[in-house]
């Protein structure tokens, strides 16, 4: 019965993915992709990976969807949203099928390796947090996570480089507006406090249960986006120092904590067990702020004038 559930879920996921790739119409593909992210999040719950499910729900089903919808809207206003016919069908299909077949074959021949299980069990008491996923992310493989937070920043600077010269001094994204007292504005007023609570709670709970800086930061970014799109808060301009500091504070605290570890405990990114928990929480809070700001700005896009002349 439980297998039937997995089979049905995977059939839906595959069907939705097929509709995304094969269906005509750009908008349809985007809506299917949003649905796809949602179903995959359920799939992660089935696989017992709650932390991944949280990330997928927030990012895959949430932010990526808005990003694509907004891009579709922009392309439509530029008159370039018309779907283009696919080219080189057969070759591409063969390549895709070969890749899928190769991976499927690999699944059946994969040996069950010895995993870092014993090392993990021995290290967990010194990790400072109870949630093993958070321990891996912020302690055992902290260098990955640090670089990843920098990847986000690099993407944002890259996105800003796409600004037209004359828009450079403008506010990020399009100038948002809404009807005062309308549904959108009231929605933008009600949702943020709730979202704020959930986001902060996800960061807090990430240490010992499920969640973490990335999931929490994404939720906070979503809250900011709703407030911005409802016209309640105005996005900043590029060059607003406080916001630039917010963008880099997480990685900066992370690097400096790592250097402190190198000086105090011998190796870069070392968190001495007695202070590991407060250190991780400090890094997580700073990271959350940076992630939330960076993600929100990534979705808002580079500064743009409202109506193209």
């Amino acid at each position, binding site marked *: 019965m439980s*297998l039937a559930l*997995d*089979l049905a879920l995977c059939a839906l996921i*595959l069907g939705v*993915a097929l509709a*995304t*790739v094969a269906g005509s119409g*750009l908008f349809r*593909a985007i809506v299917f*992709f949003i649905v*796809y992210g949602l179903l*995959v999040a359920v*799939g992660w719950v*089935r*696989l*017992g*990976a709650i932390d*991944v499910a949280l*990330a*997928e729900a927030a*990012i895959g089903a949430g*932010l*990526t969807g808005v*990003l*694509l919808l907004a*891009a579709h809207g922009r*392309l439509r206003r*530029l*008159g*370039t949203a018309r*779907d*283009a*016919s696919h*080219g080189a*069908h057969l070759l591409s299909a063969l*390549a*895709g099928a*070969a*890749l*899928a077949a190769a*991976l*499927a074959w690999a*699944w059946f021949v994969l040996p069950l390796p010895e995993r870092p*299980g014993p090392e*993990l069990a021995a290290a967990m008491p010194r990790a400072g947090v109870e949630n093993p*996923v958070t321990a*891996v*992310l912020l302690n055992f*493989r902290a260098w*990955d*996570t640090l670089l990843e937070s920098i*990847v986000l920043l690099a*993407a*944002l600077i*890259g*996105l800003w480089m*796409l600004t037209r010269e004359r828009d450079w001094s403008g506010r990020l994204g399009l100038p948002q507006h809404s009807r005062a007292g309308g549904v959108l504005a009231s929605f933008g007023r009600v949702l943020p406090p709730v979202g704020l609570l959930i986001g902060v709670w996800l960061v807090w709970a990430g240490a010992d249960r499920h969640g973490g800086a990335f999931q929490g930061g994404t939720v906070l970014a979503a809250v900011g986006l709703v407030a911005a799109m409802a016209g309640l808060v105005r996005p900043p301009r590029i060059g607003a120092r406080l916001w630039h500091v917010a963008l880099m504070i997480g990685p900066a605290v992370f690097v400096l904590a790592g250097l402190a570890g190198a000086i105090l405990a011998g190796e870069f990114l070392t968190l001495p067990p007695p202070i590991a928990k407060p250190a991780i929480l400090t890094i997580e809070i700073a990271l959350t702020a940076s992630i939330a700001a960076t993600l929100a700005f*990534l*979705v808002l896009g*580079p500064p743009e004038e409202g109506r193209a002349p």
Partner: protein
Amino acid sequence: MTGLTVFALTGAALVGLGFYGLLAARHLLRRVVAFNLIGSGLFLFFGAAGARGVGPDPVPQALIITGIVVALSATALAVGLVVVHARAAGHAVLPEEPEEPEEPKDEGAT
């Protein structure tokens, strides 16, 4: 057939489907979507592989979360590029052959 196999094979199929989309699709936004399909298919495969054996292995989960965030960063930059490219070129497909960049007139003008 176990649940894990179902998810692993789904992941493999998604990678193939996404790869087809990345190669065959011409509208650039579709290519970005296809890129995301490949990524998440790969992660599903990885997640299933990590859930084998006794107790789930947290390392793949952490790597997948990192991968999801990296994919989002790349998607955001790619989507931005699609839009500005469409604004400059008037279409959202790439020509089959890369054209030569136009002469950067007066790049060094003061």
